[in-house]
C-alpha cells in the first residue's frame, strides 16, 4: 500500500518531485496519521456504542441528551478530558509516568499496520503479519507495568502486576490457537490467511456445507479454537469478565488510578484500539477477513436489501416494545441501499466490498464482546490463572495436534 | 545504513556496555541485563555478517537459537535469583559469599 501510495503521489502533476524514499516516508506518516485518526474516531464511536449496548442490555435508554439520541455525548466527554488539568502526583516518578501511556498507545496503533482492511487497504502487507501483531501487542505489558510502577500507588502496582501476569499468561494459549490456524493456512501473511478461507466449507472434502469456508467452520478443532481465541483475547485486552487489573471495586481502576485528563484519555484510546484490534484479528483469522460470505457484487447488493429488511424489523420491534420510534438505523441503511443500487460507485463497500464485510464482522464481534461484559461476572485471580494454564493451554495443545491430524487425514500435508 | 561497520560498531558498543554492566553492578538482575546486552551484540553481528558477508540465512537461524537460549537462561537465572532472595533477603552478588574459606 505504501508503495502504491507513493507512486500515486509521484504521478500527481502538482506534487513536488522528490526521492522515492522520501515520498514513501511521507506515505508512512500519512498512513500512520490515518490509523491514529481511525483509532481516535473509533474509540469515540465505540464508547457511545458501549453505552447504548449496555443500556439495551439493561432495558434503559443510555445517553439521550447531547445531540440526537445522545450521539454527541462521547464527543463532549472527550472535550472535557482534553481540557482537564494535567495532574502528576508529587511522589510519582514523573518520567516513567509520562512515558507509560505513550508506550501503550503506540503499541496499540502500530499493531494496526498489519491489519488488512481490504485487499488493497493494508498498511503493510508483511509476510509475517500475524506474528508481527502478536509481538507488538506484547509490548503493552511493559507500558502497563511502567505506568503502574510510576504512579507510586499500591493499587496501581497491584493492577499493573496483575495485568502483566494476565497478559503474559494468556499470550500462550492465544499464540497456540493462532498457531493452529497458521498451520492450516501455511502462511503468516494476513491476506494469505484470508484468501485461504475462500470458497465454501465442505466437511471431509466431500460433504458440502451451506457455510463459507471460514476457519471457524473449517474443522471441529478450529471451531473449538475460535471460542478459545475469543476467551483468550478477551483476557488479553482486560475486558470483563477478565478485567481484574482495573476492577473498580477491588483496585480502584488498577494502573490507571493516578491518571486523569489527557493521559487517562490515552489509556482509554489504547484500550478501545486493542479492543478493535482483537476484533479485527478474530475476523481475519477465523471469519474470512474482508472476504464476502457471498461471492459477487450482486450478492452484496442483495445482502443490503436483507439488511434493509432487518432494519425495518428492528424499527418495528423498537416501536412496539419500547413505544418509541428509532428510524436512524433504518434511514442510514435505507439511504445507503438506495445509493448503492443507483450509484454503485458511491458506496465504498461496493467499490471496496472488503471494507464493508470486515466492518460487519468486526462490529458483530465487538457487539459480542460488549454482550460478554454485561453477562458474565468477574473471575477471581486464581480462577483466571487456572483457566489459562490448566484449561486453555492443554486444549490449545490438543487442538494443535488435532489440526495437524486433520490436515493429514484430509491430505493437505503428506509425510 | 548501508555499511556493515555501523552495525559492527553498534555491536561493539553494546558488548562493551554489557560487559561494564556485568562487571560493576551489584544487583544480580542488573547483571542479567548486562548479559542480555552482550547477547544482543552478538546477534547483531550474526545478522550483519549474514547480510554482508556470507549472503545466507544461517546467521538468522543461529540468532534465533541464541534468542531462545537467552530466554531459557533468563528464566532459570531469575528462578535462582528469587531463591537467593528468599534465602538471604538480598540479591547482591558480592555478598553471596557463604562458600568463602
Amino acid at each position: 500500500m505504501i508503495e502504491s501510495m507513493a507512486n500515486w503521489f509521484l504521478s500527481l502533476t502538482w506534487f513536488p518531485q522528490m526521492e522515492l524514499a522520501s515520498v514513501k516516508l511521507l506515505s508512512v506518516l500519512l498512513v500512520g496519521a490515518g490509523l491514529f485518526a481511525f483509532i481516535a474516531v473509533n474509540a469515540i464511536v465505540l464508547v457511545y456504542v458501549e453505552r447504548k449496548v449496555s443500556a439495551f442490555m439493561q432495558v434503559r435508554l443510555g445517553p439521550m441528551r447531547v445531540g440526537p439520541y445522545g450521539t454527541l455525548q462521547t464527543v463532549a466527554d472527550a472535550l472535557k478530558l482534553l481540557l482537564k488539568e494535567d495532574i502528576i502526583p508529587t511522589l510519582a516518578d514523573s518520567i516513567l509516568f509520562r512515558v507509560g501511556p505513550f508506550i501503550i498507545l503506540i503499541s496499540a496503533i502500530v499493531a494496526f499496520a498489519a491489519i488488512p482492511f481490504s485487499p488493497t487497504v493494508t498498511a503493510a502487507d508483511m509476510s509475517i503479519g500475524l506474528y508481527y501483531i502478536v509481538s507488538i501487542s506484547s509490548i503493552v505489558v511493559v507500558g502497563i507495568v511502567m505506568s503502574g510502577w510510576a504512579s507510586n500507588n499500591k493499587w496501581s502496582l497491584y493492577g499493573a502486576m496483575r495485568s502483566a501476569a494476565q497478559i503474559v499468561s494468556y499470550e500462550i494459549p492465544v499464540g497456540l490457537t493462532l498457531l493452529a490456524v497458521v498451520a492450516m493456512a501455511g502462511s503468516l501473511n494476513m491476506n494469505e490467511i484470508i484468501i485461504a478461507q475462500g470458497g465454501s466449507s465442505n466437511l471431509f472434502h466431500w460433504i458440502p456445507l451451506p457455510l463459507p469456508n471460514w476457519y471457524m467452520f473449517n474443522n471441529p478443532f478450529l471451531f473449538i479454537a475460535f471460542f478459545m481465541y475469543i476467551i483468550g483475547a478477551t483476557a488479553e485486552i482486560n475486558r470483563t469478565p477478565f478485567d481484574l487489573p482495573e476492577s473498580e471495586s477491588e483496585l480502584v481502576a488498577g494502573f490507571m488510578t493516578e491518571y486523569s485528563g489527557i493521559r487517562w484519555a490515552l489509556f482509554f484510546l489504547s484500550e478501545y484500539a486493542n479492543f478493535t484490534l482483537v476484533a479485527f484479528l478474530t475476523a481475519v483469522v477465523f471469519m474470512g477477513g474482508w472476504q464476502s460470505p457471498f461471492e459477487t457484487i450482486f450478492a452484496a447488493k442483495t445482502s443490503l436489501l436483507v439488511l434493509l429488511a432487518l432494519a425495518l424489523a428492528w424499527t418495528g420491534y423498537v416501536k412496539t416494545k419500547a413505544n418509541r420510534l428509532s428510524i436512524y438505523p433504518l434511514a442510514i441503511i435505507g439511504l445507503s441501499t438506495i445509493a448503492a443500487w443507483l450509484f454503485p460507485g458511491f458506496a465504498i463497500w461496493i467499490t471496496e466490498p472488503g471494507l464493508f464485510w470486515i466492518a460487519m464482522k468486526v462490529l458483530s464481534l465487538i457487539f459480542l464482546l460488549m454482550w460478554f461484559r454485561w453477562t458474565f461476572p468477574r473471575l477471581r485471580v486464581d480462577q483466571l490463572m487456572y483457566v489459562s494454564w490448566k484449561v486453555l493451554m492443554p486444549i490449545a495443545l490438543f487442538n494443535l495436534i488435532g489440526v495437524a491430524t486433520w490436515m493429514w487425514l484430509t491430505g493437505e500435508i503428506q509425510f | 545504513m548501508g555499511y556493515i561497520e555501523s552495525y559492527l560498531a553498534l555491536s561493539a558498543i553494546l558488548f562493551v556496555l554489557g560487559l561494564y554492566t556485568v562487571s560493576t553492578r551489584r544487583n544480580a538482575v542488573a547483571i542479567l541485563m548486562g548479559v542480555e546486552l552482550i547477547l544482543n551484540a552478538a546477534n547483531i553481528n550474526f545478522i550483519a555478517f549474514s547480510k554482508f558477508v556470507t549472503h545466507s540465512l544461517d546467521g538468522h537461524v543461529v540468532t534465533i537459537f541464541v534468542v531462545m537460549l537467552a530466554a531459557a537462561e533468563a528464566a532459570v537465572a531469575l528462578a535462582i535469583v528469587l531463591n537467593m532472595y528468599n534465602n538471604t533477603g538480598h540479591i547482591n552478588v558480592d555478598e553471596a559469599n557463604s562458600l568463602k574459606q
Partner: protein
Amino acid sequence: MITVALLILLLPLLSFAIQIFFRKFIESKNGEWISIGIQLTTLGLAFYLFAVMIGHYDPHFRIEENVTWFNLGNFSLEMGILIDNISVIMLLVVALISSLVHIYSTEYMKGDIRFSRYYGFLGIFTFSMNGIVLANNFFMIYVFWELVGLSSYLLIGHWWEKNSAADASKKAFITNRVGDIGMFMGLMIIMTVLGTLNYQGVYTGIASGEWEGGIGTLFGGANPHTLLTWAGILLFMGAVGKSAQFPLHIWLPDAMEGPTPVSALIHAATMVAAGVYLTVRIFPILTPDAMATVAFIGGVTAFYAATIAITQNDIKKVLAYSTVSQLGYMIMALGTGAYVAGFFHLITHAMFKAGLFLASGSVIHAMHHALHDIKDHDTDAQDMRNMGGLKSKMPYTYLIFIVASLSISGIPFFSGFLSKDAILAGSWAYASTAHEGWLASMHMAWILPFFGFGAAVITAFYMFRLIFMTFFGESKRPDIFEKMHESPKAMTVPLMILAALSLFFFYTIPSINPFSTHGWFSHVIENPGTVVNFGSTFNLEHFEHANHEAHMPAMILSLIVATLGIGFATLVYLLKKVSAESLASKLGVLYKGSFNKWYMDEFYINGIIRPFLKGCDAVALFDMEYYDHYLINGAGRNTKKVSSGVGVADDLIVDGAVNFSGYIFQWLGWSLKFIQTGRIQNYLIFALIGVVAVFLLNAF
C-alpha cells in the same frame, strides 16, 4: 513359542516389581490379585505350551533359542531358552502349584504385616524357578539356582522377628552354598574341558569323545572318565544341597519355619525338585560310578529320612522328612537309571505333597485361629499331640489328606502308586543287572531295593500315623477343638484341585488302566540313555528289559509293603492294639535316634563347626603371636631404627631446602592474596585486562 516361554519367565518378575515397588499403592486395595492375575496368566501360557507339546506327541520335541550373553576373550557365555517335554511339564507344574499357592495365601496370610512383600517374593521365586526350568545351559541354570536360593532364604525368613525363622533361613542359605560350591566346581571342569555349557553341546561333546585327551585325562591317566565322574558328582552336589539329600538335608526340616504355603510351593513341590531337575539334565553325562554315587545317596536319604519321620510330632516336620525321603526316591531312581520313573515321581510328588502341605496348612490355620480365640499363645499350633478328631470339624481337609496320603503310600488308583512302583522296579532292575565291579561283588546293589521297599513301608506307616493322630480319635484339647472350623474356600479349593491331580488317570491317559505305565507321560519322556562311551557296563536295552521283568514282582511287593505300613499304623494309632509308648521304650536307642534325627545337627555342630572354629582360633593365635609379632612387627621395628637415622639428615638438609622455597612462595602468596577478592566481577575485569594485554602484545 520362545516368546510364550519368555513371557512365562518374565511375568512373575513383573509381579515381584509391582508388589515391591508399588506396595504403598496396592497394599490396602487387594493388591495380591495383581500377582494372582499374573500367575494365572502364566498358568494359561504354560497350558498353551503343554497343549503344543502334547500336540506334537513326540519324545524328541525340542525348541531352542540361543543368544550370546557376553564375550570374554575368545570364549563366550550364552543365554538361551530350551523348550522340550521335560521343561514344559515342569513349567506347567510350577505354574499350577504357584497359582494355587497364590490363591491359597490370600486367606492363609490374611492380615500379615508384610503381605505385599510375601507376594513379591513368591513372584521372584516363581521367576527364578521358571528360569531354572527354561535354561538351556548349565551356567544359566546356576544363575537361577542362586536366585532360587535367595528367594527361598527370603521366604523362610519371612517372619524374621522369630529367631528360629531367621536362623532357619541362614541355615538353608549356607547349607545350599556348600552344595553350590560343588556344582560350581563341576561347571568349571566341564567348561575347562569342553569349552561350552550348553546341554546339547556338552552331550555331543562327550559323546563325540572330546573329553578323551587333553585336560580330560587329568586325574585318570589313561582313563578319561575319572574326571568326568568327578564332574558328574560335583554337579550332583548342587542337587544334594538343593534337594536336601543325605549329608546336606538338615536345612529342609528347619525351613518349615516359613509360612506353610511357602513350604508347599518351595520346600515340597518346586525348588527342592530343582535338584532332581538338575540331575535329570546331567543324567546323560553321568558315568557308572557317578550314577552309583547318586543312587546310593538317594537310597540312603530315602530310608534315613523316613525313619526320622516316624517319631516327629510336629505335623510339618513329618511332612518335611517325608519330602526328604521322597526326594531321595527320585534321586535314587535317576541313579539307578530309571530316568522316567524319577521324573515321573517328581511330578506326582509335587501334586500330592503340595496338597499335603497345604492341607496341613489348613489344619494349622484352623488351630491358630482357635488358639487365638481362646487367647492361648503358648500352645504349638503345629503339634499333632494337640490335635485329634478333626475329621468332623474339617471334612474337606480330612478327605484331601486321605487322598494325598494314599497317593504317597503307593496305593493303586493314585498317582503315587504309578511313580513309586516304577522307581522300585527300577532299583530292582539295577540290582539285578549289576554284574561287574564292586556293586556286584558283595551284592551291594541289593541295598538299594531294600532301602526303597523299607522306606515304602515306613512312609505308609508315618503318613497314616499322622492322619490318625490328627483326624481320628478323641480330641486331646477339647477347648481348642470347640473353636475349630473348616478353612475358607480360597484354601479348600486349591486343595481339592491338588487332591484331584493325585488320581491316577491324569497320568495314564489315554489308557485308563490304573496299573498301566504306558500313558502319555511315559511316551513323551524317554530315557535318553548315557552319552558316555564306557563300553558294556551299562546297556540301556538291557536295563529296560530287566526293568520290564522286575515290574510285576516289584508292584506286588510294593503293594504288600504299603498295606503292611498302613495296617501297622492302624493297629498302633487307630485301634491302639499296640501301645506306641511301650514300642518306643522297647526300641530305646532306635527311637531316641530317630526322634533326634540321628543326631545329624549335633554331628555338624560338634563334628565340623566347632572343630573348625577351634582351628580358626589356633590359626588366629599363631597369626597374632608369631607371624605378626616377629615377622611383621620385627621388620617394622628394624625399619624404624634405620629411618630415624635417615630422618635426622632429612630434617636438616632436604627439609631446609623445601621449607626455604615454601617460605618464598608463602610470601608470594601473601602479597598476591589481595588480588583475590572473592568477587567474580573483579576477576572478570582481570580477565579483560589479560585479553587487552594479549591484544597489545600481538599488536606491537
